[in-house]
């Protein structure tokens, strides 16, 4: 009896891996690979984007996965920390494709890192949706498997210029921006648009991305006597510039900066933040009529409940990028990257993140064509700093505050 028991136990042990493997096979999955900046300078915005990705994955898997030809596929992530460094992105995207066999890719956060990742993904013919990357140049290089979620950088400050034109036609403008690929791309387009709209640029200057003291730049701004300041770059520089504009009483009537004022953390700047506006890819107040996935209102509420912090455009963009893959895979009825890429080419949907359609022109393939931006402004309401949508007027949640000082 004892020998029989031992024999049966041994047989069960030997059979266990095969049984486990067969149960794993019963549930197919789709692997999406990406890197996030868990450390380094891009950590704040990149983690917000990661939360968007994760919330989408959890929602999809809770609903039984993505249906492909009636068969459910659960979504799996493989991700690494890129330390906010291009060299790590290059190494890790190769690893994601070659070793981890990721079927689809999300881009890392920021235009610079996404451009680096795109070189690798195109080289291997891997399909990648870029979230958190607005620079348009990457889509003018003949890429075939790259698709952009965000409004391109060229249009980042268009809304701010239109709002200024409404309040003070012919205003004088100081264009002061960080010397990084994204901010420079925005500045080039803004310079042209400002001239076309009849504004005079009285100061046009870039600063190094790691600039720590803006005293001298603000003295130049004061000397140039502009009505409005447009520019900025990413998070630390934008926040420092805002604080010093206030401390040095620069007296500018309008300030729009890139990226930094969009973060909820910007409110810690207190009085310095009042009136500062930021072009935003998305805001919780915006009511797009979503025809795929949850509404922006429901997303914002559930995000707050899940992470105990407000959603921003980086997190909504993360969720939106996931929805795009989900929609394209369902439309393609296949997980074959070529068929999913073909489905993305014909995508024309509105999600919580807004409308989405990609260029199919070989000269700009994958470039976002229809997504629109909003302009939000920090305003004091009942002693609390709140971010209100002020442009376009049709979508605004509060009147424009002008002049801010």
């Amino acid at each position, binding site marked *: 009896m004892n020998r029989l028991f031992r024999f049966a136990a041994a047989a069960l042990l030997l059979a266990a891996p095969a049984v486990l493997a067969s149960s794993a096979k019963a549930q197919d999955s789709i692997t999406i690979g990406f890197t996030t900046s868990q450390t380094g*300078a891009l950590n704040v915005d990149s983690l917000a984007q990661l939360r968007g990705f994760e919330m989408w994955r959890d929602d999809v898997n809770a609903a039984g996965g993505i249906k492909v030809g009636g068969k459910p596929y659960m979504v799996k992530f493989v991700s690494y920390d890129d330390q906010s460094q291009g060299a790590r992105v290059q190494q890790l995207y190769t690893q994601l494709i070659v070793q981890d066999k990721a079927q689809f890719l999300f881009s890392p956060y920021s235009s610079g890192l996404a451009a680096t990742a795109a070189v690798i993904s195109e080289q291997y013919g891997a399909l990648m949706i870029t979230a958190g990357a607005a620079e348009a140049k990457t889509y003018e290089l003949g890429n075939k498997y790259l698709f952009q979620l965000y409004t391109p950088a060229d249009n980042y400050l268009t809304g701010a210029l239109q709002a200024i034109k409404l309040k003070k036609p012919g205003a004088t403008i100081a264009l002061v921006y960080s010397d990084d690929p994204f901010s420079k791309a925005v500045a080039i387009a803004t310079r042209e648009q400002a001239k076309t709209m009849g504004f005079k640029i009285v100061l046009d200057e870039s600063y190094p991305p790691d600039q720590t003291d803006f005293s*001298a730049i603000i003295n130049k701004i004061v000397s140039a006597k502009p009505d409005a300041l447009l520019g900025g770059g990413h998070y*630390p520089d934008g926040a*420092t510039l805002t604080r010093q504009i206030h401390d040095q009483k620069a007296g500018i009537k309008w300030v729009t900066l890139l990226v930094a004022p969009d973060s909820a953390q*910007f409110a810690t700047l207190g009085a310095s933040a009042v009136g500062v506006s930021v072009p935003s890819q998305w805001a919780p107040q915006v009511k797009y009529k979503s025809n795929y996935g949850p509404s922006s209102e429901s997303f914002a509420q559930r995000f707050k409940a899940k992470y105990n912090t407000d959603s921003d455009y980086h997190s909504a963009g993360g969720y939106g990028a996931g929805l795009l893959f989900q929609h394209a895979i369902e439309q393609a009825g296949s997980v074959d990257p070529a068929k999913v890429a073909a489905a993305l080419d014909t995508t024309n949907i509105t999600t919580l993140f807004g409308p989405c359609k990609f260029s199919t022109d070989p000269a700009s393939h994958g470039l976002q064509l229809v997504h629109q931006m909003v302009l939000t402004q920090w305003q004091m309401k009942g002693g609390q700093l709140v971010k209100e949508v002020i442009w376009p007027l049709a979508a605004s949640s509060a009147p424009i505050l002008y002049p801010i000082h």
Partner: protein
Amino acid sequence: MFGIFASIVDGLLIGTVYGMAAMGLTLIWGVMNVVNLTHGAMIVFGMFALYLIGDWLGISPYAIVPPVAVIGFGAGVLIYWLSVHRMIGRPPLMSLLSTFAVNLVLIGLGTDLWGTKLFNIEVSLPGLSYGGYTFPGTHLMAAALTGIIAVLLFLFLDKTRSGKAIRAVAGNRVAAELVGIPTTRVLALAFGLGVALACVSGALIATMFPFTVLSGSSYQLKSFVVTILGGLGNPAGALLGGIALGLIEGLATPFMPVSWTTVIEFVVFVLVLIAFPRGLFNFTFRRS
């Protein structure tokens, strides 16, 4: 025209704080020939110490500067015993790697605790305004406090028994040991003092600008430039080097794009290394 003057004054004000940060770095080098690569992390440590204590006690940030100095001194002595003591007298690369490792650990811990999100300390201190240009109160106060701390440091090094012991060890450790100076304790004291200076400069920077866990690297880089301008191992030179760096920034900015100031700083850095390898202000206490 006043804009140029305002830029120069701003440069000088901020330069004094660069100088204080560099004094800590150069003091450690001067006494024990160790390049302290925890310097940037300790500047950030000072920023966070000021923020957290201020948040807890709710008092003026300037009242917290002395406790920050004491905490910084304690942290410095601890780092000395953990990572520097066994490297004294060994090839410079050993202490370089050792302090670099501690720097990575500290930055990693900080990132894990607070991420790289921004912290801001609101300070209401009236500034001086003229013709549309304003010198913020925080900048004026930081420069004034730096001046006071520099005087106290020189009095300590020049007049007190411990200060004289530090100078003796910097001059010749073996001779100092022979006359009965407990040199190991003196080295720990000097390292603690250097780190305390880094922490206090971090605290003063935190009253002027918002900061993140990663803010230290820029100031560490500036400290190296200042140290070379002032002369390695020379705290008085470091203070003057800081002021010189601030002056370069203030003078250059009105006449050229801000992006060029870094280029100019490093051109000056290389020129000083070639023409004045002992620094521009070579009146060191280190008799080497």
